């Protein structure tokens, strides 16, 4: 069990998301940086889809009731167990009764903590992810609050493993994978189906000018302000499917980058989509930060995703060798 002494701000249980219920209007949910969750899970010996804790801008204090290995990654947070600092992407052995303190971030927005065994809240519609709008999944369908107690799964296949000595593993995941959110984000995009509806100056501005991330951003989407994006013809559109990464432009002309808690369908124009591998960057956008959009092609986006999957497969093999 893990006891949440201090829940911080917008902390939630997330796994790889709730897939297969969009026809019932159920959002995808899940860790905003799914690659990060997979990496950390592999490190501590979990299934890649195990649930972890996503935190956003805030101080957390957690206490474990038994000995567990943990790992974290994300923005520039300070994570400590007792007096020892845990660097991102390393495995740390935490003993029963010890407290994990998380502070930050100095840069970036979110971080993820995984614990060997995974957060074992019940599966709801096939996922442990919190759907805070639908009020189900995770811990009571809500962001965590002080005093919550989360069950942990049993550590699989870890009995044989050496406890890192000293308590923090000497080896780590590639730092560029686990330290994300450096600021001055550049998001690669491919054109959306309504690209042609925008006038030429707006398309140019979208690709060339800086946008500022607005404060009213959340797990549904990141609002940006800057050049107003205008359409050649304004007409009402029927709602249709949107995806995490879709960049919608509401009538105010400010682009909105959708994230995992977005609705299943939407009626605003879709100017573009952030490519999958850059959702890691989108998950770290924070208020006041500058963001830019750079065009790429579907072919390149798919190449990059395939290459990342290959790198990850190698990493998985490497981790197994460390553990043997």
């Amino acid at each position, binding site marked *: 069990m893990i006891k949440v002494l201090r829940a911080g701000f917008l902390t939630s249980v997330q796994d790889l998301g709730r*897939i*297969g*219920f*969009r*026809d*019932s*209007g*159920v*959002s*995808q949910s899940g860790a905003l940086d799914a690659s990060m969750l997979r990496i950390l899970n592999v490190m501590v010996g979990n299934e890649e889809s195990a649930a972890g804790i996503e935190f956003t801008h805030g101080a957390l204090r957690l206490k474990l009731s038994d000995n567990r290995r943990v790992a974290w990654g994300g923005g520039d947070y300070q994570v400590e167990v007792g007096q020892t600092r845990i660097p991102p992407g390393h495995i740390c052995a935490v003993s029963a009764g010890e407290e994990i303190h998380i502070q930050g971030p100095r840069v970036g927005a979110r971080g993820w903590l995984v614990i060997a065994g995974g957060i074992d809240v019940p599966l*709801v*519609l096939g996922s442990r992810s919190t*759907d805070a*709008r*639908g*009020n*189900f999944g995770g811990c009571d369908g809500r962001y965590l609050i002080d005093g919550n107690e989360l069950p942990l799964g049993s550590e699989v296949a870890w009995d044989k493993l050496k406890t890192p000595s000293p308590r923090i593993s000497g080896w780590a995941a590639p730092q560029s994978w686990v330290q994300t959110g450096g600021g001055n984000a550049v998001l690669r995009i*491919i054109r*959306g*189906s309504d690209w042609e509806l925008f006038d030429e100056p707006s398309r140019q501005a979208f690709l060339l000018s800086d946008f500022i991330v607005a404060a009213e951003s959340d797990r549904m989407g990141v609002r940006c302000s800057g050049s107003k994006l205008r359409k050649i013809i304004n007409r009402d559109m*029927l*709602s*249709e*499917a*949107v*995806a995490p*990464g*879709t960049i919608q432009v509401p009538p105010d002309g400010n682009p909105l980058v959708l994230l995992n808690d977005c*609705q*299943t*369908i939407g009626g605003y124009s*879709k100017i573009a*989509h*952030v*490519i*999958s591998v850059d959702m890691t960057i989108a998950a770290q956008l924070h208020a006041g930060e500058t963001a830019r959009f750079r065009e790429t092609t*579907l*072919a390149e*986006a*798919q*190449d990059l*995703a*395939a290459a990342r*999957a290959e790198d990850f497969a190698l990493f998985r093999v490497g981790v197994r060798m460390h553990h043997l």
Partner: protein
Amino acid sequence: MKIEPLGDAALIVRVCDEVGDATEMISAVCSTVGIIRRAKIPAILDLAPSYTSIGVFYDPMRTRQPAHAFESIRADIERAMGSNRGTTENFQGKSIEIPVCYDAEFALDLERVAKHTDLAGEEVVRRHAAGQYVVHCIGFMPGFPYLGGLARELATPRLSTPRTSVPAGAVAIGGSQTGVYPQRAPGGWNIIGRSPLRFFNVEADSPALLMTGDRVRFRSISRKDFEQMKIDD
């Protein structure tokens, strides 16, 4: 039919133009959903149907060539559609009667609708309950049905300031559509009644009571019936 990327892990199948008859459009969308489901394309994870199109979410790594995932899935869908061409499948959604209590206590915006439509409150209720509706799509929140078929004269613009909390089961009019809030949520539609049914239940095999293509009728019930039918959650 037109298939376009929706980012690099989803695509959108445009089944028909936006100009046709609403019920025919829904039927075409639902038939296509059935064809895609039955094709059991391994990389397809999720489908999001709406008025004239279907969002198809896929895992590029489960396609034959991940670096050409979109082309691969598009070809699979086109093949499935091709082999079903000519088979006249008439989609039939399920028919559901929804009890609604239109008592003043629940009909928070009935006066507003009456004023806008220049009809008496009882007449608004009578016409709403007499309509035949079809679920155009499910969205906005889990299980929320957008129902087409509202009598034209009942169309009423949304509230200029949405309520911060609309109760579960609230039956409402938003523009030319009507719908039911499956759970407590902020919302800007005009509330004219409340249904005791549960419209979204994560414990059920099919969590949403209504699905795209279903046909709906409302039945006016008394306050007493409402209390008897209400399932506390």
